[in-house]
């Protein structure tokens, strides 16, 4: 069964009724279980479970330490192009936004890579908008080849590709794939993606699976929290990760929880996710699947990120700039894709990790091997 069919099975699922029926006892029972089924996970996402966060947090902390140790791995994103033909109503790179478009040439990519590598970062995430004509396969492959010279491991967060294209990327040295579904609600998906290739819900939904099939070591997924009804969106994110994990045992699955920060964003989400709910989701995921990595970006502020160290986060971005050319070309900075709220340097983030009794991992895999 494809993941699309699994999502469809839940089409008429009465989420509201399910949540209304959850008691404190049921939450306690789920927390006591060794292995959680999907509906157990959903129980932990219920409003009732939010009343038992400390109980859930204690177990989540224990499980995370057991599986990952007291460690946080660092990476940095590098935007090499902001050309985009999609019209996603929430995104700064939206084709209808009249921002200055820019694509880095290989020399510039090299400069940016050097600037990032100097901070100690060894895992890099390469990003583009979706504009295949501007950033064709040859360009992407050359960019990866250039980045490999500076980093132990390179991952991509670009437009979805078919399996063969992913395989080409993998063979060129890409270890990981990040692809966010944004929303698992097919109808809403059409409403927020007005134009461009991204309108194809199913093609994007199956993207992470194509990446796993193509041999990516790591696949990172997520829903853009705030777009759709939050509890069901995160439920589907967990199910999606579980689906991939069961079928592609040689791929490490991780999840991001990107959410709108209303203070810094023009787009006003219908379902804003507050800190408490964000933490609840992260904890629920940890109990559902203790092995999944959890990536927390600089969309989250320093205080939030520092507190998430002990609550199940396993990977942080650090020293981040989301503008094209922003690491090495200070004087001419383009508008960012999204505003970052944790603007600490890599050293400062590492110090904060250490102050919480955790070790910063700069290098966890070496593609050179």
């Amino acid at each position, binding site marked *: 069964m494809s993941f699309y069919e699994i999502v469809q099975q839940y089409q008429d699922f009465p989420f509201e009724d399910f949540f209304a029926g959850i008691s404190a006892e049921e939450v306690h029972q789920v927390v006591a279980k060794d292995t959680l089924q999907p509906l157990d996970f959903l129980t932990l996402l219920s409003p009732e479970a939010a009343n038992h966060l400390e109980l859930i947090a204690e177990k989540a902390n224990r499980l995370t*330490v*057991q*599986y*990952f*140790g*007291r*460690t946080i791995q660092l990476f940095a994103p590098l935007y090499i192009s902001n050309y985009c033909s999609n019209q996603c109503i929430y995104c700064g790179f939206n084709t209808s936004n009249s921002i200055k478009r820019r694509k880095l040439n290989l020399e510039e990519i090299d400069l940016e890579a050097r600037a990032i590598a100097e901070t*100690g970062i*060894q895992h890099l995430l390469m990003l583009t908008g979706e504009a295949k004509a501007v950033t064709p396969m040859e360009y992407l492959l050359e960019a990866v080849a250039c980045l490999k010279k500076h980093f132990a491991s390179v991952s991509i967060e670009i437009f979805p590709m078919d399996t063969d294209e992913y395989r080409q990327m993998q063979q060129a040295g890409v270890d990981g794939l990040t692809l966010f579904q944004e929303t698992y609600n097919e109808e809403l998906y059409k409403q927020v993606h007005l134009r461009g290739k991204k309108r194809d819900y199913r093609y994007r939904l199956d993207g992470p699976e194509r990446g796993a099939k193509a041999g990516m070591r790591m696949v990172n997924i997520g829903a853009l929290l705030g777009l759709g009804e939050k509890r069901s969106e995160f439920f589907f994110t967990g199910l999606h990760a579980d689906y991939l*994990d*069961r079928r592609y*045992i*040689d*791929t*490490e*699955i991780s999840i991001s929880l990107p959410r709108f920060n209303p203070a810094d964003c023009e787009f006003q989400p219908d379902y804003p996710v507050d800190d408490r709910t964000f933490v609840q989701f992260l904890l629920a995921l940890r109990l559902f699947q203790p*092995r999944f990595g959890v990536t927390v970006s600089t969309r989250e502020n320093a205080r939030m990120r520092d507190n998430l160290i002990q609550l199940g986060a396993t990977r942080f971005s650090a020293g981040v700039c989301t503008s094209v050319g922003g690491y090495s070309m200070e004087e001419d900075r383009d508008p960012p894709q999204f505003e970052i709220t944790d603007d600490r340097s890599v050293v400062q983030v590492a110090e904060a990790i*250490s102050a919480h*009794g*955790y*070790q910063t*991992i*700069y*290098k*966890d*895999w*070496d593609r*050179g*091997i």
Partner: protein
Amino acid sequence: MSDTALTLGEKTFTNRLFTGTGKFAANSQIPQMLAASGSEMITVALRRIDLTSETENILNFIPNTVTLLPNTSGARTAEQAVRVARIAREAGCGNFIKIEVITDSKYLMPDNYETLKATEILAEEGFVVLPYVLPDLPLAKRLESAGAAAIMPLGAPIGTNRGLETKPLLAMLIENCSVPVIVDAGIGLPSQAAAAMEMGADAVLVNTAIATARDPEVMGQAFDLAVRAGRAAYLAESAETSLTARASSPLTGFLD
């Protein structure tokens, strides 16, 4: 009580607790843990080693009296494991290698087939090869023939702290292998380490249980004590067993 030292390759070990470098809250805990546990060999994932960085290079935290056991963690094929081993030797990490080939990121089960292939190649190249495997006797015998210096069967999946779930299979290896058997992975408590040693394991390797304890230094010490106790019990019991065997002969004495 007199005990013979454990020999692997050209090195001898009097302490039978081997440790690991993963999951510590800070690398600075490693030398403290080593001192407290008395461990004479520590495994380190080559993929984590950053030879270019002074503060991040984990090797700088390991005293040179302790034998390095680089491991091939992250390798998914025999070919990758072989490459990792060669890089480790060239990087000055010695000629010990723990082969870890894992294709399953869910349970982290070792791939016995790929591990055997890597063992064959690396033993031939002069490495002291310690393959991490599921406890499977026919495989263990093949690893022996291929030149493995020891067999490292798991007690339970890595990091699960579930103890000796594979106990009957471990017993078969301990009874029938001519190379040392070192129980690796799954040991979550000193009592479980003691149990492995009582069974006759030649050594144990413990990482998660020590590294993730609130106080890794004290936990390292606790494991040292447990391993010593288990080893002493094993040696004591073997003496007793031979006494019992002699005492039983009168039952058939009338046949003489």
